[in-house]
């Protein structure tokens, strides 16, 4: 029950779940992620049901440009890796190293987001508006929802990095950084599914 953790000899090995509050956050965040999985599943289902309804507008195979999507995938996968490095540094109480890798994660996320915006602008130029066809609406909803999650995640980590810029790693902020990294992995996993279901199947004509 009590929150007393002895920090006189440095941080515990797992600062993110050394306190009751940290542990509770852990459980709560997994519950949140399971809700997110369900939400994304409905958007994937909608897309799979409607992706052939192009209504004479542009089709997936006309639009998708593999090199761009491949670069985006690599950027997001790398940002997941850098967040792992940051969390490993956090567990070793190396605050500066954690901050550096979290900033790298942030900027990789920004790069990903930039490519995604560029991609959407290109598609609009090709004549794929949000309400052009059922394919267009479900595509923009699914990929746009993922993009909105990236925006939220970037705002989140930016807030944490500014707030705890000089705080060092504490039992209060360690769970917060850890929850962000969980969220970021989730975003990454969703993208892997988007890459497969939307882009690979779109180009492969599956």
């Amino acid at each position, binding site marked *: 029950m*009590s929150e007393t953790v002895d920090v006189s000899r440095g941080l515990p090995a797992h600062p993110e779940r050394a306190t009751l509050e940290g542990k509770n956050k852990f459980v709560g965040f997994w519950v949140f992620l399971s809700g997110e999985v369900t939400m994304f599943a409905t958007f994937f289902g909608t897309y799979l049901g409607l992706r052939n309804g192009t209504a004479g507008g542009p089709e997936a195979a006309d639009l998708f440009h593999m090199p761009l999507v491949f670069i985006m995938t690599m950027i997001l996968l790398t940002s997941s890796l850098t967040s792992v490095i940051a969390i490993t540094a956090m567990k070793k109480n190396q605050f500066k190293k954690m901050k550096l890798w979290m900033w790298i994660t942030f900027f990789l996320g920004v790069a990903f987001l930039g490519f995604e915006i560029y991609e959407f602008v290109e598609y609009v130029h090709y004549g794929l508006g949000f309400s052009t066809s059922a394919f267009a609406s479900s595509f923009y909803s699914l990929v746009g929802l993922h993009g909105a999650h990236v925006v*939220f995640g970037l705002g989140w980590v930016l*807030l944490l990095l500014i*707030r705890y810029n000089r705080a060092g790693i504490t039992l209060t902020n360690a769970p*917060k950084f850890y929850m962000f990294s969980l969220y970021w992995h989730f975003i990454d996993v969703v993208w892997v599914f988007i890459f497969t279901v939307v882009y690979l199947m779109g180009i492969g004509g599956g």
Partner: protein
Amino acid sequence: MSSTQRRKDRIIVDDPWDGRALEWATHTPVPEYNFAQVPQVRSLDPLFYEKIHGDGKMKPTEPLGDIHMPNGSFLPFMIALGSFIAGFGLIMKHMDAWINPYFVVVLGLLVMFGSMAVRSWKEDHGYHITKENVEAMEREALADERNR
């Protein structure tokens, strides 16, 4: 009705309906910490189970100690309010209102995510009810029950 009368008429029996579930296992009125010790749950109807197989009281899972409590906060209300405003803005598209619906959506989202950010920024560690105070409140609740 005078306030003394109302106080007299207050129901202070702990388990007036011979209940089955946890909410009847604590005192009435419910203390701010709910349970002085987290009860051990041995069934889907834990209190009923204890009445049949035990002595009718929940067994504690921990020794009596200080209880950590969260501080009151209006931020959850602001998050909900922002969510409501944003949702209302989305259905305003067909209302032909005097205000641009996108403005309402953006305002709502700012209030919602802004409140979340404030909640994250402010480290609110809550407070503790000391073991002595918990014991005193428990004694008072038991005395209330007996004097009924």
